[in-house]
């Protein structure tokens, strides 16, 4: 059937293209499915999902990202969330921890415990997981440059709990490439950073087989202002770069690829997001099988965590953020996410309170248990519009892969500022569209109220910083200094060799070396990275 339909724009002048700029037609029909082939979930190329039974077999993991102030405070929040029905843990670290420095470093001043929990040594990690059995709970840790150290601390806690490493499960973000591209929490230059990532992959493949070694992240790329298509393309390009690096080390693709996972943003452009998730699975499967020759279906299957878009939340009329988050979470579920974090309404102002964190979790439970969205697999599969968008996003991603190849690969493209410029341009374009009211953010550039009621927010006690500073000094004073010194010397030597660093880092962590001390040793060997800022 050839459908003819008027292509007119919206009468109110609002932009009708997707946020990625894909023109959207007023009507889609079977014409848009030209060449479409029936697919099944659980089968290559997994457009419709990686599990043949969808959410009937198992719901997504409800994993709320959480961490603030001290390890003891955060431990209390973890017990609270698990009691409320959360099914996995996810650690948010504070800025000094993310940047590999101790709480008493001069540049940590004012940052300790503010946007996550402060972890300086194994002692803090022991407190963080007090009363939480690491053999049965899975934990996700959002950390990148110092990822290997925090993983070592986690494994050391498991050892102390008597849990064998083969039983430990969880996910390490450990995605350094997107730090150079978007989030900017890099420390070392790209090359030694990649070595550390591959070291942790290699170590886990042998010792911690249930650990997801890298969570290749589009979230930060998107939050930095990219479009959905850029998020998709840059993230998968990073994924291929990790595969290339592991192959170069001599690892076999099927030995590590099943433990690579992904992390995407669920933004507000509902259908485009669903298409993005579907396209991601299809692209990964095709490349892993056809380009890398992976044989194990687990290597083809893209599994991902989703977080709703922090950047879509508004400080104005913040209660509306509950509705935004619900819609974004629904897009993630319709796109087949394996795990989900829903933002709390107050996260545009501060870290969430107990109450707002509970509402965020309840939003997921509402989708899972009230809406029926989990009852059928890939309910939008075959939709004229969603299938056409899925294909469109796949084509845009492939065009970006070609461009990145032309630039010599991901790292050369980073060094030339390619991703950074693409993202900054997209962010500026979107902001301009808002300014011109061609796109609407309710409560921000339309539908305003005169008197905003103030929301009660979580305040981090500024006094807790001093407490944490004293704690880390206490650890340094009380540890076995001969043992500490020996492990540090060995680590320094290993950093200059080709040895896998994980065992050395584990030894240092067990001797209560602090995160800042370990990073210091590595910086001595590898130096620091600085970027040429582009605006």
């Amino acid at each position, binding site marked *: 059937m050839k459908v003819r339909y008027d292509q007119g724009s919206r009468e109110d002048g609002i932009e009708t293209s997707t946020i990625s700029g894909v023109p959207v037609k007023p009507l889609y029909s079977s014409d848009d499915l030209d060449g479409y082939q029936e697919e099944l979930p659980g089968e290559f190329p997994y457009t419709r999902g990686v599990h043949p039974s969808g959410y009937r077999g198992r719901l997504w993991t409800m994993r709320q990202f959480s961490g603030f102030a001290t390890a003891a405070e955060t431990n209390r929040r973890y017990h609270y969330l698990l009691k409320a029905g959360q099914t996995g843990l996810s650690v948010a670290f504070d*800025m*000094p921890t*993310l*940047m590999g420095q101790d709480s008493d470093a001069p*540049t*940590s*001043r*004012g*940052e300790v415990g*503010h*946007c996550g929990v402060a972890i300086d040594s194994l002692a803090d990690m022991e407190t963080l997981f007090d009363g939480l059995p690491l053999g049965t709970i899975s934990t996700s840790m959002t950390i990148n440059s110092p990822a290997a150290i925090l993983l070592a601390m986690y494994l050391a806690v498991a050892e102390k709990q008597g849990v064998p490493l083969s039983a430990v499960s969880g996910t390490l973000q450990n995605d350094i490439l997107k*730090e150079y591209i978007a*989030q*900017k*929490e890099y420390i070392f230059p790209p090359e030694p950073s990649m070595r550390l990532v591959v070291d942790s992959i290699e170590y886990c493949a042998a010792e911690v087989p249930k650990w997801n070694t890298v969570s290749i992240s589009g979230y930060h790329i998107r*939050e*930095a*202002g990219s479009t959905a298509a850029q998020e998709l393309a840059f993230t998968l390009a990073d994924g291929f770069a990790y595969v290339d690096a592991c192959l170069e080390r001599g690892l076999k693709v099927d030995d590590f690829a099943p433990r690579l996972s992904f992390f995407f943003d669920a933004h507000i452009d509902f259908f485009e997001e669903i298409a993005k998730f579907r396209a991601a699975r299809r692209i990964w499967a095709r490349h892993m099988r056809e380009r890398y020759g992976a044989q194990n279906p687990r290597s083809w299957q893209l599994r991902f965590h989703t977080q709703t878009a922090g*950047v879509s*939340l*508004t*400080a*104005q009329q913040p209660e509306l953020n509950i509705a935004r988050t619900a819609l974004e979470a629904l897009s993630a579920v319709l796109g087949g996410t394996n795990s989900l974090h829903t933002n709390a309404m107050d996260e*545009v*102002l*501060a*870290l969430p309170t107990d109450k707002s964190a509970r509402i965020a979790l309840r939003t997921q439970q509402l989708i899972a248990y009230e809406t029926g969205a989990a009852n059928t697999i890939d309910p939008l599969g075959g939709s004229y519009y969603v299938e056409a968008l899925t294909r469109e996003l796949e084509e845009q991603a492939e065009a970006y892969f070609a461009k990145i190849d032309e630039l010599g690969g991901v790292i050369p493209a980073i060094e030339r500022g390619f991703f950074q410029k693409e*993202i*900054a341009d997209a*962010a*500026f374009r979107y*902001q301009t569209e*808002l*300014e011109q009211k061609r796109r609407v*953010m309710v*409560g*921000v*550039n339309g539908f305003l109220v005169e008197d905003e009621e*103030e929301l009660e*927010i979580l305040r*981090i006690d*500024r006094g807790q910083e001093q407490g944490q500073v004293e704690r880390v000094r206490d650890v340094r004073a009380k540890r076995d200094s001969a043992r500490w010194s020996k492990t540090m010397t060995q680590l320094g030597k290993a950093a200059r060799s080709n040895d896998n660093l994980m065992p050395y880092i584990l030894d240092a962590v067990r001797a209560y070396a602090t995160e800042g001390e370990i990073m210091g040793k590595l910086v001595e060997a590898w130096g620091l990275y*600085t*970027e040429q*800022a582009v*605006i």
Partner: protein
Amino acid sequence: MPLRIVMAKVGLDGHDRGVKVVARALRDAGFEVIYTGLRQTPEMVVDAALQEDAQVIGLSLHSGAHMTLIPAVVEELQKKKAEDIMVFAGGIIPEEDITELKKIGVAEIFPPGSPLQDIVDFLRERFPEEAAAPA
């Protein structure tokens, strides 16, 4: 002389979408913008402003460290006898902190969702002569 503005990310957080968008909008509005990049200490920011002969410092923070780092920039300006340099800021800064920061001399805070035009208008109003000068 057009208005010269040093835009900076102080502290450890690397969230630079906001600062870059604002920097570009200010440049498009005819101001001279110097973006310092990430991880600046209060001392580095003030030194940059003095070196660049800037009249304005724009700070961006998303890490919750604003109540330590913004006052530190203000103090550093006092220490270097450069209080005439105006400071404004933006980022995840709650209402009651805004009141406190204004008390210590921060000219304006632009919370999330602030229109770019508001920032441009604010600077033009404060610096009418420089704003009229051709870039």
